């Protein structure tokens, strides 16, 4: 399989949505580098990569769930509240490690509840995780925290230093993103349970009949997704030395779904891989960065994102016509 090889990019295998996204990303990158002053500079590229990392890590978790034909709308709440509550606990004088373990357990619990609601409660994932996301945000904001923004207390110098740490000039989170991608790729491609995710996403009933433990696997997917979301939360908090829980009300959640779908992981499940998330994240990251330099308003940014998504999906539909033999319910 093409984990490292690039044979899929060669012509002759048909132009897929994935290739369209890669070509668009490359063209935009080259175009902005030449024509947009301030884009191709070290400081801007580092900022660009940072944005991609957060989006990408969230996207890996979301991608995992979507491959299993689910969706997780609670990721941004988990991102915000896990990091903010951790900072809150530090402020109350808890040692770093016990605070870390406690928050980790809460994150796993949230993911497991998502999974149980979907797998055992048989609630459609879109409702289960929407409710869970609202609950996590509401509970965290009203019961666990005093204010919207939690600042890392100045005495935790190591934590504050982590946020600006660079290895060979590359910010720490890049390594975290690469590690997350590697772990997820190895899981999906080379472990039995990773293959189960694809089988469950492709045909749930067939997977169950075959004897695949479908419900424990669903729980696992949502736990993994929540864990990735909290990793992304840690990165945001370390970067900004604080966590603003209002991020829940931003368009971040839609951006995450956007990069996953844009990259070519179909919402009908069983298709795509981590590679697709990375490409989706690159395209959107480059675009958002350039639009920020150009000082586009948010509303215009959303308009352009929408057009890009429509263009990618329409190209795919036109290039890979589905007939009644190959189409599946929920295909986009």
């Amino acid at each position: 399989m093409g984990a490292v090889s690039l044979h899929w990019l060669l012509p002759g295998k048909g132009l897929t949505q994935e290739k369209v996204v890669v070509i668009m990303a490359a063209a935009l990158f080259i175009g902005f580098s030449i024509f947009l002053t301030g884009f191709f500079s070290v400081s801007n590229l580092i900022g660009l990569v940072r944005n991609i990392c957060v989006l990408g890590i969230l996207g890996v978790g979301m991608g995992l769930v979507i491959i299993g034909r689910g969706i997780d709308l609670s990721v941004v709440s988990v991102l915000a509240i896990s990091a903010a509550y951790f900072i809150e606990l530090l402020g109350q004088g808890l040692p770093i490690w016990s605070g870390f373990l406690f928050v980790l357990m809460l994150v796993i619990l949230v993911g497991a509840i998502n999974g149980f609601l979907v797998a055992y409660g048989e609630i459609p994932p879109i409702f289960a995780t929407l409710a869970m996301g609202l609950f996590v945000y509401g509970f965290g904001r009203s019961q666990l925290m005093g204010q919207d923004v939690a600042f890392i207390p100045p005495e935790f110098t190591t934590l504050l230093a982590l946020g600006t740490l660079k290895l060979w000039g590359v910010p720490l989170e890049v390594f975290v993103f690469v590690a997350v991608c590697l772990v997820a790729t190895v899981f999906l491609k080379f472990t039995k349970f990773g293959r189960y995710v694809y089988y469950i996403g492709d045909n749930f009933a067939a997977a169950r009949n075959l004897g695949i433990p479908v419900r424990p696997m669903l729980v696992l997917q949502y736990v993994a997704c929540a864990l990735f979301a909290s990793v992304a939360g840690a990165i945001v908090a370390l970067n900004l030395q604080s966590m603003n829980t209002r991020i829940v009300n931003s368009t971040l959640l839609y951006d995450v779904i956007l990069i996953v779908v844009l990259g070519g992981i179909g919402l009908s499940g069983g298709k795509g891989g981590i590679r697709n998330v990375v490409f989706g994240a690159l395209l959107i990251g480059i675009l958002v960065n350039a639009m920020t330099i150009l000082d586009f308003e948010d509303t215009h940014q959303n308009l352009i994102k929408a057009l890009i998504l429509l263009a990618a999906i329409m190209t795919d539909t036109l290039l890979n016509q589905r007939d009644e033999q190959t189409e599946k319910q929920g295909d986009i």
Partner: protein
Amino acid sequence: MTVVLSMEKVSKRYRGATAVRDVDFELLEGELHSILGENGAGKSTLTKIMAGVVDPSDGTMRYRGREVSFRSPSEALSAGIAMVFQETSLVPSMTVSQNLYLGNEKFLNRLRGINISAQQFLQSLNFTVDPTALVATLGAAQRQMLEIARAVRLNARVLIFDEPTASLTPEEKHHFFALIKRLRREGVSLVFISHALEESLAVSDRITILRDGERILTDETRNLDRREVVRAMVGRSLSDTLYQSKSDQDIRPAGERILDVQDLSMGAAVKNNSFSIFSNQITTIFGLVGSGRTETAKVIAGIYKRDFARGGQIRFRGKPVRYRVPSMAVSDGIVYVTEDRKSEGFFDSMSIAENFYAALLSSGLHRRSTVSMREMRDLARKWRGEIGIRAINDDARVIELSGGNQQKIVIGKALIRTPRLIIFDEPTRGVDVAAIDEIHRLIQALADNGLAVVVITSYLPEVRKLSDRILVCRQGRIVEEFSPAGVTDEDIMFAAVH
């Protein structure tokens, strides 16, 4: 007789693959024309071109003397050509009359008004159904009749049916053919696509046979017999051996009593069902659709749960078992091969190799938690040869294969899990003639190797060919047991319907 519809040199190509090639076709007024052929012969594509569902790549079509090319099914319908789908184009949550007038509602609909006119219209067709009943509560036959009624109401002059009788009981078939007869008297032309050879020979005026997308012959039915038709369909003569009944000395003696079911109950579908299954032989369970045979099998395989209280008892190899999920049954060695392979049998967007590998991974035979591409390829090569799947390579996606090959994949996946008891539910449904024989031989070989084999079927020749022991299922329970020696088809059918 006047020609209603004619096609000349019609072709349809899908990305390189040709589904229909230079086919000429003529439909006369008031005739019943059957189109026969193996799976993948192009029957569905040809009829979909007539109904405007599929655009032809080449060729011309004339309808009532005018050259036409329909861009959509609704255009064909307004011209008078309707295709009756298997219950797919009805809205289950609406009533009969609402469905009847679907798409022609007035801006303000009065339910009472359409109920009254629906009642009158249905009566004129001699079709007794309550217009206020929800479609969800209707049986397969009634839904089909409703589809026909809708087409008639829209003044359809050509009706196309895909496997019209596949899901009907004998009694429902009777009503169905009575309605067909009335329509023909009024000059409506009918096209049947069917797998049921005997029926086509019995009811149609003319038969067209397709093979590999080409027309092999069109002739009046009275000039044809069964053997000729099968030879034209498959290009060779194998009809004689296809459903040859088993001779009495070939009956395998019962081995160990491997499964013992006592008073099994599940909801309304299975009621106090008791029977036993033995190894070393093939037990067929004959029963009509809705007799509870599939549900019983699914309870045994852990796919459904039996009633919690008074659900009865299942003993497998002497031990009482109660499976909550299929994986428990699979690890004990009970495997169920589904009748509905598309929705619960295989992973359709994945390759042959990945499908086989799924079975190995989930079987418990694969102890490592990592996967290997080489292991997957070796497994696929081995099993593709073992069960004779004809595909270009192991990377072919399952959805692109013919029904016979798809069924073999589902069977291969079952065998990879080394079952002790294997239950085949309608193993040859929607499978082409050549593959039927191969699948039958596979099933026979399993029993010869000592497995306990159960075959659920509603096709009597299949019962005659495979059975070492016959169980008949009716209204949720096994009602009769026969030895294949000395029992007649009438005995079996009588037990199934009375």
